[in-house]
């Protein structure tokens, strides 16, 4: 970071910052300063900078950097808190102790190795100069001046980096396949479809450090002999699209894209294609069809895209995080990349931590870190002291739910796959005892069944059939034979489906059957949902022996279906009750069944 004189105030304004009102915080800062437009204020040379999300969800984050002084971090800043920061800290020189981010925040970052995320929340994502000041485009500059394409691919191979988008295929190898093909036209595609509902690292990188992705694509273009790149980004990420567009425009203006980049004779173009709301389009062959302007139907591989991809031409398709790693590898060398990680899983991986965990956000750790270290380190442990850890979902709809026993699994492609889950894109959703595993399995099958493109029968018909069975189980109409049938179907679909969507869709069912068989059994034999989630299996009855007469449930009920007076047991009016479970969730004494 450049050592400019004065005070810099960084405000995180990615999608999550903006959702918390970061724009209003920035406005208030500017207004407050303008109001005090006196000699002292001007002398302080205060600069406000909007940066991307830093990766922790603690509403609006504001950092104050002053030359020669320790960096001060504030979290959960609202417009109402701004005037004290301006008065006491920016002008008075004394940080506002009441608003300091504190220990939890520090702990969240302390346990990480931030490489891909290094710029996120630190630089102005729209400023090419700041990107360059922080080492940006050193990589592209180096290869254009010093290396031939094959040498670049060799470095990527040596680094051992594997795809961060799901399958974990060695990136260098993929590039080599495409480079070998003799074709006047080749393409680089950045897969920014981020389809796993629960993952948000790609969004944060695109919003917080878009030039890194552009540089990664350009390097891939040089190495493979491609001159056109596409970023396929999901339409649900409007801010990412906006930042990306801006970055592409700037890169063209400054000759980092277009003809004769850096005057070294290499030309590369990048266009954006917006997804249109189809999960299957994250799968590479579907994605390619979608860019071609068709329905996003997958096709069997081989031929792999590296041989026959977009418009029938050799195509390299890589995930956002994979591409964001590329400039780092070129800049610092493949050895540096391998200083962290494991032998067959080198480098770092970004995880999107969400669910019933204290600190939610993006955690970048070396491969080989254990799941426990992520959840109980940066994650800070479970959200509620009342409800213990039950499972962690990894890999999204293609992944699985892992129990306590798997917490010490090392995070690398092979170890995670062994458990029945997959590394996937790095979604990590923590579940506590109030989560029903059958409901979660049903949720995922509902998702994949509705996202199945319908091309192959195992996926189209099979998933629907699994969904029907799961529906009957959660409704209390299931039997033991349903569980057997569920497993049979799951294995069959896994073997016979056409593409990755169908091949992996049964994983959430298979892992919950493997690790939580008792929960299925209780649903079908006792017609009970131990986590009190499945609506049809809840009686909505107050158990007097547990009720502490506290009245919390009455407050929680959105439709006033609960009667309670001080000193009395609560009662539920079943005619009014809409079975929303709000009362069950707030009850500290498990008094509602």
């Amino acid at each position, binding site marked *: 970071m450049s050592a400019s004189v004065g005070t810099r105030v960084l405000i995180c304004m990615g999608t999550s910052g903006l959702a918390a009102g970061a724009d209003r915080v920035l406005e208030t800062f500017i207004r407050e300063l303008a109001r005090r437009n006196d000699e002292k204020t001007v002398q302080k040379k205060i600069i406000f900078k909007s940066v991307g999300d830093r990766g922790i969800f603690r509403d609006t984050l504001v950092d104050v950097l002053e030359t020669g002084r320790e960096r001060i971090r504030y979290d959960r800043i609202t417009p109402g808190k701004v005037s004290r920061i301006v008065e006491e800290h920016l002008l008075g020189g004394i940080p506002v102790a009441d608003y300091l981010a504190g220990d939890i925040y520090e702990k969240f970052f302390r346990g990480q190795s931030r490489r891909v995320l290094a710029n996120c929340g630190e630089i102005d994502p729209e400023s090419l100069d700041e990107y360059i000041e922080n080492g940006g485009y050193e990589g592209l500059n180096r290869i254009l001046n010093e290396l031939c394409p094959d040498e670049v691919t060799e470095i990527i191979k040596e680094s051992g980096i594997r795809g961060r988008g799901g399958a974990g295929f060695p990136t260098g190898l993929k590039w080599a396949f495409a480079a070998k093909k003799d074709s006047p036209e080749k393409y680089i595609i950045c897969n920014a479809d981020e389809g796993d509902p*629960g993952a*948000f690292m790609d969004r944060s990188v695109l919003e917080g450090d878009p030039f890194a992705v552009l540089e990664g694509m350009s390097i891939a273009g040089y190495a493979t002999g491609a001159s056109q790149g596409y970023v396929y980004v999901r339409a649900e990420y409007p801010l990412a699209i906006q930042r990306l567009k801006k970055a592409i425009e700037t890169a063209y203006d400054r000759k980092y894209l277009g003809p004769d980049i850096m005057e070294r004779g290499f030309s590369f173009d990048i266009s954006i294609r917006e997804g249109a709301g189809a*999960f299957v389009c994250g799968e590479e062959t579907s994605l390619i069809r979608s*860019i*071609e302007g068709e329905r996003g139907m997958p096709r069997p591989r081989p031929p792999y895209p590296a041989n026959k991809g977009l*418009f029938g031409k050799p195509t390299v398709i890589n995930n956002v995080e994979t591409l964001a790693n590329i400039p780092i590898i070129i800049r610092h060398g493949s050895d540096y990349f391998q200083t962290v990680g494991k032998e067959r899983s080198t480098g770092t991986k970004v995880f999107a931590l*969400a669910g019933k965990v204290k600190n939610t956000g993006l955690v970048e750790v070396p491969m080989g870190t254990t799941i426990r270290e992520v959840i109980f380190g940066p994650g800070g442990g479970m959200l509620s002291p009342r409800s213990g850890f039950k499972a962690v979902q990894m890999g999204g709809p293609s992944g699985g739910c892992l129990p306590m026993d798997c917490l010490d699994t090392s995070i690398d492609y092979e170890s995670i796959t062994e458990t029945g889950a997959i590394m996937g894109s790095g979604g990590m959703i923590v579940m506590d005892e109030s989560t029903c595993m059958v409901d979660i399995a049903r*949720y995922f099958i509902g998702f994949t069944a509705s996202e199945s493109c319908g091309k192959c029968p195992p996926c189209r018909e099979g998933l629907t059939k699994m969904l029907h069975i799961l529906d009957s189980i959660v409704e209390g109409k299931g039997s033991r034979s349903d569980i057997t049938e569920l497993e049979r179907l799951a294995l069959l679909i896994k073997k016979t489906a056409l593409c990755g969507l169908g091949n992996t869709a049964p994983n959430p069912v298979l892992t919950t059957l493997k690790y939580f068989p008792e929960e299925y059994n209780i649903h079908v034999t006792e017609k009970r949902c131990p986590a009190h989630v499945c609506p049809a299996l809840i009686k909505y009855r107050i158990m007097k022996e547990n009720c502490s007469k506290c009245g919390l449930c009455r407050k929680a009920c959105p439709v006033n279906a609960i009667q309670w007076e001080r000193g009395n047991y609560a009662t539920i009016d079943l005619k009014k009750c809409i079975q*929303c479970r709000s009362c069950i969730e707030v009850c500290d004494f498990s008094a509602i069944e």
Partner: protein
Amino acid sequence: MPETASHQLVNLSDMRVEIKKIIRGYQGEEGILIKIIQDIQSMFDHVPEKAVDILCNEMDLDPVRIYGILTFYGQFRLSPPGKHTMTVCQGTACHVMGSKKISEYVERKLSTSPGSTTSDGLFTLEKVACMGCCGIAPVVVVDHEIRGHQSIGEVDHLMKEIRERERD
């Protein structure tokens, strides 16, 4: 993208002019059909039948091809949305944090289902698989504004507020 409000473009010949403009803007680019349809949707808030006819005419395409795309991708709407759009995120993190009870409540309250509009035309419920803000689950999006840590109470309050604002 030309910023024209949908109601200003009821006229067919205007519509033709605008669509031709969109097509021309992408001349020479390959595989651009979806992008053109996306632009049409952002211009009219939905993809009107007439626009499909015009597009087929101008690009010499079979309507089946266009409807194939329109029905495949979740983003496209064939009828105009209500005045306000509302989405309860259905992603995994939101599900685990209790979004289902919110979406069920909203559906009951508005007597409509995702993809449909209330009979008074005030709300359209939409479906989304994840907004990428999973750390503040459950997430509700109202008129493109993302709101985190939502509860039935908050969403209820919001719907009331919008109704009252519209009544004035």
